[in-house]
């Protein structure tokens, strides 16, 4: 999973144990296009919490990509294995919610400048635990 701010550079990238990180990075970047497309499609839609969840962006090959956008246009992208069929939609939603919450916690920290890479240990722990749950 990874998150990008407005200018679409990654603030944070973390992969589950599989090693082909580069492939994930590539996937995530390409999925950004889809995310942007969806955002523009939303247009004047009410920015409801639910609509921030973009759902399955597109299923390719052997994995699925999920997107989530916050009010401040920070995008969360999650790539999961298709073989992991146990992941239900609401679980993905809950994971995105957790990410969002952790992200806002980080924002509360006055020492954190928005736009910096995220170095928070708490955030890392949370993300790791979440991924462990899934895998």
């Amino acid at each position, binding site marked *: 999973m990874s998150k990008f701010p407005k200018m679409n550079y990654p603030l944070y990238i973390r992969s589950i144990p599989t090693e082909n990180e580069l492939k994930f990075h590539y996937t995530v970047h390409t999925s950004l296009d889809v995310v942007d497309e969806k955002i523009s499609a939303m247009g004047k839609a009410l920015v409801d919490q639910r609509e921030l969840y973009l759902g399955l962006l597109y299923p390719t090959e052997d994995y699925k990509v999920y997107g989530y956008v916050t009010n401040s246009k920070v995008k969360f992208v999650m790539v999961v294995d298709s073989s992991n069929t146990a992941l239900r939609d609401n679980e993905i939603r*809950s994971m995105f919610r*957790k990410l969002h919450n*952790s992200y806002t916690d980080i924002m509360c920290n006055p020492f954190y400048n928005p736009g910096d890479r995220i170095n928070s240990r708490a955030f890392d722990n949370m993300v790791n635990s979440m991924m462990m749950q899934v895998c």
Partner: protein
Amino acid sequence: MEQGPAGGSAAAAAAGTGGLLLPLSESEQQRYSELFSRCCPPPEAAAGGSSVGELFRASQLPADTLHQITEVCGAKRVGYFGPTQFYIALKLIAAAQSGFPVRIESIKNELPLPQFVALKNDSEVRYGTPAELHGVKFQVPHTSLEKNSYKRTDEGDKQEPKSPPMSPICSPPASPSTYQRVPLSYGYGKSRSGLEQQHGAPYEVRHTTHQPDGPSSGNYGAKPALACSTLNRSLSGEREQQDSNAHYSDDPWRITEEQRDYYINQFRSLQPDLNSFISGSVAKNFFTKSKLPIPELSHIWELSDVDCDGALTLPEFCAAFHLVVARKNGYQLPETLPETLVPEYLQAASLKPMRDCALFDSYSESLPGGQQTRDFSRTEKTAAEEVPDSSALLQDGKKDDKQALKVSTDLKTIPKEFQHLTVKTAAQESNTLKARPRSRSYSSTSIEDAMKKGEEPPTPPPRPQKSHSRASSLDLNKIFQQNAQAVRSGWLPPPPPALPPRPSLSQEVVIAQPPSKPARRKLRTETQGLETPELSPTISVTSSLPAVKPHLPVQKQSSKQKRAIQTAIRKNKEANAVLARLNSELQQQLKEVHKERIALETQLEQLRPVTVL
């Protein structure tokens, strides 16, 4: 006057004695500073006259010699025994014991350490064993600080030392400048941090073994002696620094009274209202002065701002400051907020004000340690605050705000909250109020477009159990009625997996789980958190855990695992239920299809003879 030799640590004792620079060897320094700290009850910067007198008498020198020494060292002139005077006096005592005349010149020589008799009792009596570790060890950084300030004031005004030791530093000048003084000494320490780490362990051992020995150790004096010297200390100073390091090793995360007073003073300088809080930017500026790297400050903030609102209350500020101090003394920052920092400052929080809802949007935090601290803070907060409904309502309003902003909670932490709720015996209503909305917000959002899952039929809540005095009875009844309705409604999916509280708790908790489930369902239907406080007290009652905080850490860890298992079990059960229902529906459809097929076939049969012919 001459500077100390480079090999040793030069103690430049200036000003007090009219510019006399004493060359003190390392061992002398240690001894002297340790003696000084012993004579100096913790908060004072100057040795008490009586204790100094005792010490001098213990040197077994004749009285007039002692008088002479006092005069020569300048104490009479300045009126009190500051560190410089004290050191000179000790040196003179050593000289006198070696047979030299009591004169300034005699102390320029290399002298053995002054001998004092019956001093061990002194120290033991004064400090006591448990406090000794603490008091003495804390004394050291304080005396160092005070000496630091003393050193500076030597140049200018002579500050009257008073307790706590930090106050001479902080009180007269503006706080930023005082704080800068503190970090100067601390920053000094930090520059040694690399070396400190290595030597921390052996020195720790030495400390613990030496402490009972009292005066013989002489390690304690290191840091004050260090601070006494000029700040441009050579590497030889590192050893003293390490000693101070070891002081913290016993319990680095405990805030002593002096420290707390100091932190409170600093807080006051930033924010006159002790019950209010420091905003993030102000705190940022303040802590940036400590010259710690930003990532570390960021981490410290994460640890200490337990409710994640971007502002520090007094206890949070104390914790943060303490972490800064520890870090500057070379201690690595912990991953989670240490327990001693948590309850201490939470207990110290007399009254946390009702935070303005506007001031923060507090999301549920997923900090592991921070989570429990937040719960504690909440429980403490509400315990400290009045439990009248007004406050509860206010809390409610605040929590609703939280809710409105918040999306989900870290499920695993919710049971933890419940743990805490069970522990707290004080008014938990507001607590649970806070706890519940979190779970509720999660459940409400997740369930609304969740697939229709069969819920596992919960066992009927043990209503009699819930009827406990803790919660107001009226609300309870309302809840139960709603619960019953919710149970009947049936379609509501089961509560989020992690919500069933604390499987690690006693078996009563298992019974409590179904109550929590209908409670949650009711929450969803209600969308009001007002009832939740009543629920959690009941849950806490059913669990009926003793309110023992030490149990918590152990419970949490085992509960985490169990919670994970519970989560998995629950998920599987849900999946099973869904599949079972699906199966039954499909079976039904299959039967119908069969019937149709049979009907069609009979029709066909009936029609066929017509065509066949």
